[in-house]
């Protein structure tokens, strides 16, 4: 038997503060190596950390956004280990008193995933290994960039749930606007813990930690790989080691780290350079009062206000960018009625499919701004193009970066509404398919659809479906 899958995820979120967590250096990404450093983030002797207040406020914002309780006292700890990218030989982090505890979020199916803790810490620098193996270089621009660590309880039961949890979490974090949540830049990072338990005791399995997961896809692939690996080991009666494994994205496998590389005793103790301080209820309430509308509330509003089905509303609001896109479309049109639903259909259908196929993180990367979607729907509604043609227009817009109107003009893709032209084609169709024509006359309404399809085919999709139906009905002696 394969056992019950138990997954917990640790997410590291880089905050978008202008300066680092304990000094005034810039946090800008992509600057030349070691250009954004000072004695404090270089860990020079004698200098001291001073907490950036914005980090603490962002931390509370995220913790509240994830439904956590805010601890009344802020205490930092030192996590001690040696590594060249860690200038002080310890990371200032939080340990037994994290900023927020015991929150959670809900997946689409209603399953609640508990969040154990949200805490503040500083990022480390980066090592750059010379390709010839001759030297390793240290870039400390990232050292001291503020991070939040968000740790879930081991409530996830499948790869799909883990993926959905990450998507949902990222959605909420985007709404909170405290990070650019960009996995490629490393501003959102994820480590996974996975074990296989039994029906009677789901937490009885040995936990394996997977690191080096650089995209949501990598998380899903690595977890799937690991479930299979551990399942096979169990089936063969092998003992699963508690260890840290690295995901190799190119090979699609996880590889165990040598024990020396992870067997740390971090010797946590309270950071004596930072005095513990209290968080007042008023401070927490102030941050809570400034929280934006979060995905669930927005979905509810979308369903109620725009008359959308619950599933559509949830789909549109999972990402802040998508929801903003949708509302930008609506601002250019009426809020209710067929437009609201058509825009939703397009976004959840063709636009979502293309984003997915192109592995895009956000709707804004598609190169198809809200006014283009409005334009496209208007072309359909006004009968200038058919729904079927619209799909081609959309694809051409993505390829050429032109607006739908421009595409239609340049390509000459205009819907044929000329009754005479359609009638001529309809007569041909009826002649070629006497049996369906006979069936229709005999009362089989579905036969008309077949004939319309044939008519479309003959006219290469340009015929107006509405006019085509009308013409065929007249031709076959049955007014619609």
């Amino acid at each position, binding site marked *: 038997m394969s056992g019950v899958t138990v997954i917990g995820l640790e997410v590291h979120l880089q905050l978008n503060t202008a300066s680092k967590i304990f000094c005034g250096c810039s946090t800008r990404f992509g600057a030349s190596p070691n250009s954004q450093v000072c*004695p404090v983030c*270089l*860990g*020079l*002797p*004698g*200098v*001291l*950390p*001073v*907490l950036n207040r914005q980090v603490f406020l962002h931390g509370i914002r995220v913790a509240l956004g994830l439904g956590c309780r805010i601890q009344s006292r802020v205490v930092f700890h*030192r996590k*001690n280990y*040696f590594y*060249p990218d860690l*200038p*002080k*030989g*310890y990371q200032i982090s939080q340990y037994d008193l994290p900023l927020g505890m015991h929150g959670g979020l809900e997946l689409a199916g209603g399953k609640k995933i508990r969040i154990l803790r949200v805490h503040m810490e500083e990022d480390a620098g980066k090592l750059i290994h010379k390709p010839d*193996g*001759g030297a*390793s270089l*240290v870039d400390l621009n990232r050292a001291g960039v503020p991070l939040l660590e968000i740790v879930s309880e081991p409530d996830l039961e499948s790869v799909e749930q883990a993926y959905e949890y990450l998507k949902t979490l990222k959605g909420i974090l985007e709404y909170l606007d405290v990070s650019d949540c960009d996995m490629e830049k490393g501003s959102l990072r994820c480590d996974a813990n996975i074990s296989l338990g039994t029906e009677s005791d789901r937490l009885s399995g040995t936990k394996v930690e997977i690191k080096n997961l650089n995209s949501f896809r990598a998380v899903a692939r690595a977890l799937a790989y690991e479930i299979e690996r551990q399942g096979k080991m169990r089936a063969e009666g092998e003992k699963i080691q508690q260890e840290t494994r690295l995901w190799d994205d190119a090979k699609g496998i996880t590889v165990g780290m040598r024990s*020396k590389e992870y067997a740390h*005793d971090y*010797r*946590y*103790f309270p950071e*004596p*350079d*930072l*005095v513990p301080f209290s968080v007042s209820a008023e401070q927490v309430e102030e941050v809570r009062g400034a929280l934006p509308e979060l995905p669930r509330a927005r979905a509810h509003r979308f369903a109620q206000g725009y008359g959308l089905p619950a599933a559509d509303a949830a789909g549109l609001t999972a990402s802040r960018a998508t929801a903003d896109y949708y509302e930008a479309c609506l601002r250019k049109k009426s809020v209710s009625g067929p437009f609201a639903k058509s825009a939703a259909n397009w976004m959840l259908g063709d636009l979502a499919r293309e984003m997915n196929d192109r592995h895009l993180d956000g709707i804004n990367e598609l190169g198809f701004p809200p006014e283009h979607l409005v334009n496209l729907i208007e072309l359909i509604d006004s009968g200038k193009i058919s729904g079927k043609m619209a799909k081609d227009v959309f694809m051409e817009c993505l390829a050429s970066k032109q607006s739908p109107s421009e595409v239609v003009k340049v390509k000459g893709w205009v819907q044929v509404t000329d009754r005479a032209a359609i009638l001529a084609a309809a007569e041909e169709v009826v002649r070629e398919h006497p049996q369906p024509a006979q069936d229709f006359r005999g009362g089989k309404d579905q036969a008309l659809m077949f004939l319309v399809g044939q008519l479309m085919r003959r006219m290469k999709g340009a015929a107006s479906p509405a006019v085509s139906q009308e013409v065929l009905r007249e031709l076959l002696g049955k007014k619609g």
Partner: protein
Amino acid sequence: MTILELQSLYRQGKTTPSKEAENFLRRIESWEPQLHAFAWFDPEAFKRQARALEQGSGPGDSPLWGVPVLIKDNICVEGVPTTCASKILAGFRPPYNATAVERLKKAGALVLGMANMDEFAFGSSCEHSCYGPTRNPWDRQRVPGGSSGGSAAAVAAGMTPAALGSETGGSVRQPASFCGVVGLKPTYGRISRYGLIAFASSLDQIGPVTRTVADNAALFQAIAGFDPRDSTSANVPMPDFSKALQPALKGTRLGVPREYFGEGVDPEVKAALEKAIEELKRLGAAVSEVSLPHTDYAVPTYYIVATAEASSNLARFDGVRFGHRAKSTAGGVFSLQEMFTRSREEGFGAEAKRRITLGTFVLSSGYYDAYYARALKVRTLIKQDFDRVFEKVDGLVTPTAPTAAFRLGEKVEDPLTMYLSDIFTIPVNLAGVPGLSLPCGFTKAGLPVGMQLIAKPFSEETLFRIGHAYEQATEWHRKEPTL
């Protein structure tokens, strides 16, 4: 020459910083070969500072204008080698001044040089230095105390009117006592730790070393006070400490803790203290016996808390970015692990290694609760001892150290005995309260004995008031060692 005497001469126009620089240089030339109190000294740079000062405005009302101050080798001075007397920091010149140094410079003081010390302030004798030991000006066969031994010896020998030391567990007061000078350990949070190379962050404080209490107050006034760059710095008002310097002690309640006069205290030290207490009474103080029941636990508690923090604070000395890095053998590439291990193996001295090992152990998983967590609880009890006693008295009088200066090499092979020479100073650091050591007599062999005054947090005024009144009534501070 004291700070205030020097200041008076400057104001009357009787001398100039350059002339005084020459005078101190002559004094240094004769004494330094005997004592070895300096870790770094550049006479030309010193003279240049004096000349530059003369080009600018006059002394104004700054008591430190034109006053040489020797800086302990663990307090960062921009562009000057600051090495904690450790090979691992060889060649390190900080690109910044410690806040205390910055304030000294602003007040017109001259940075004389860097004072020798026990490596990373780990020691009570100034023998654990990569530059070799400093000697006691009163008896060159004896230690000056430590870790701020260079600072105290230099002031005692008159090579400088003032010095900065630092304390983690008695490192200013004990050498002040051994050398017959005045040393203050301020309330934790009074003087910014920015730029003080950390030993144990929750205990460390910079402290002034001077010849008189009035000088000490003047130096303290210039460098203390809130600093936003140090989160543990206290935002508490700074009074004018010179106003505390009154001759009488009428109405002052002094406590004598019985735990500080028991076994292990040298009879001559005890006798000197008893005489000093009589003098304080004569000056109007009401003296009563009090108790600090957890005193015995202070040294073991300290060696857990302080070494734990030190093991972490010293992790940054890894050979990656500055200081000593081991060379790979035979020009080959060596592993990261090897670079860390060998650089630290070669860079740290024996006492530093002992303390790093001890500190690493007490924080290790499985031992944390038994040692570190428990030590923090005992620390709270020790602090409560002081809180309770200060409900009844304004200050405490104790010996600074159980003995006068011991011989070089006498305790260096026996760390436990060495650690016990801080038995009366360490509780003050653990409690975070201020303590002042000042001379109160000499042994038959001619070695100074120090008296320690302790007061509640942020009442350095009380220490200066009691200390100054006593000093005015006695002659100990006027005695000088001879070559």
